[in-house]
């Protein structure tokens, strides 16, 4: 109980350590999310509306990668970025950039697979009309993305939820270094193992609040879109 009240005191008094960790978590996850969205949304859309040999395998692969264990992603990125790895010369290991890369690898398949399903559904509806109007290629991809904007936003938020709550990959490639690569989830793991429940609880409360906010946003977007027949 004491730990809980102390945790709320940390939040209310805007504790600098807590907010440093919070800010880094958001910075890493939002950056990863933006990069992933730029890659995954057009990829998911393109896979939904084009037909080529191996397309089904690509979709299968994306769906399979949705469930890839974060520690495996962490290990792969670690091997790539380690001093003896192919990208070791970049010197990114144990930096926020490495954490961003790991999160991009982790959430790109999620956003791509979810957006693929959304656009597949829309494509069934629009295909004949777009053919009739001569809408193809990039213009079609852009049009699908605009028309599925609300559903795609929820896909992106699902990616954000996964990124912000992720611990396995970022702890491997970030190293959980204080004031450098310590994010909410890795800090919670560390502080709990040290028995310092105050900071862990405060971070947990913030993480839970963020998760609630993201979910509320998803529901709000869905309702707004449904009301305007944009869903």
């Amino acid at each position, binding site marked *: 109980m004491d730990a809980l009240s102390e945790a709320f005191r940390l939040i209310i008094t805007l504790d600098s350590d807590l907010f440093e960790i919070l800010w880094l978590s958001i910075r890493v996850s939002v950056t990863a999310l933006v990069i992933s969205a730029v890659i995954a949304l057009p990829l998911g859309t393109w896979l939904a509306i084009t037909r080529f040999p191996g397309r089904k395998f690509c979709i299968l692969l994306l769906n399979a990668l949705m469930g890839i264990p974060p520690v495996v992603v962490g290990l792969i990125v670690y091997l790539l970025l380690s001093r003896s790895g192919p990208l070791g010369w970049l010197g990114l290991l144990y930096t926020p950039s490495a954490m961003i890369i790991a999160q991009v690898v982790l959430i790109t398949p999620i956003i791509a697979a979810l957006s693929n399903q959304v656009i597949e559904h829309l494509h069934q509806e629009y295909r*004949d009309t777009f053919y009739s109007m001569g809408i193809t290629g990039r213009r079609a991809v852009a*049009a699908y993305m605009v028309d599925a904007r609300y559903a795609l936003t929820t896909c992106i938020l699902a990616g954000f939820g996964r990124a912000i709550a992720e611990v396995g990959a970022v702890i491997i490639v970030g190293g959980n270094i204080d004031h450098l690569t310590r994010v909410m989830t890795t800090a919670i793991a560390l502080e709990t193992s040290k028995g310092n429940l105050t900071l862990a609880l405060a971070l947990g409360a913030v993480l839970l609040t963020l998760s609630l906010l993201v979910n509320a946003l998803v529901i709000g977007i869905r309702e707004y879109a449904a009301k*305007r*027949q944009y869903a």
Partner: protein
Amino acid sequence: MPSSLLPICISDLRLIKGNRAVLQGVNLRIYEPGITVIMGPNGAGKTMFLRCLHGLIIPDQGVITLGPLTVANSRDEQAMVFQQPVLLRRTVLQNLAFAAPGIAKTDPRRLIQALESVNLTDRAGQPARMLSGGEQQRLALARALLNEPALLLLDEATASLDPASVLLIESLVKAQSARGTKVILVSHDQCQARRLADEIVFIANGQVAEQSPAEQFFTAPQTRTAKAYLAGEILF
């Protein structure tokens, strides 16, 4: 000015769906401008024929030419209105702008004029999918006509609409035909066919059973199937 896609020549068109020949050896020549109505019982192959003409379905056999062009390279000259209008998840005006980005950029007043022509000016800023069925179909027609197609195809575009919407759409189709667009429309509605058609193509069992001027078709149909159809008898 007559449509640049005339004459429309269809030779030995064959389309198999599953194990069934939906179209079997369709031969047809359409030389005249104006409005051609395709009639026939359910399952006769009218919609499939129209979709082949538009390039939405590639037939298993046969050749289609539209004036000097093939189906594939006449796509920009054609427009089609479907039985169920598909509108983008955008406003009414944005739906038009999307169909004709060039016009939207250079002469946006034409978009407003297009909305005026289908009595939807006051709905310009509304989400298109919130319109009623009749309004959605009017918008789909306005969108199809924006680029002044040489060939306009309508697949039972007025089915399940109220009489006022039907008449408005018919008047727009007639006006467009008078401007030189060749119109081919599929309809079950004999009254509508009598009001609109210059020529009737009657399809039964995946074949063209009869092609004649509208007046002649309704007063003296040449085939027994057409007579039975017009008399409202059940055809198999």
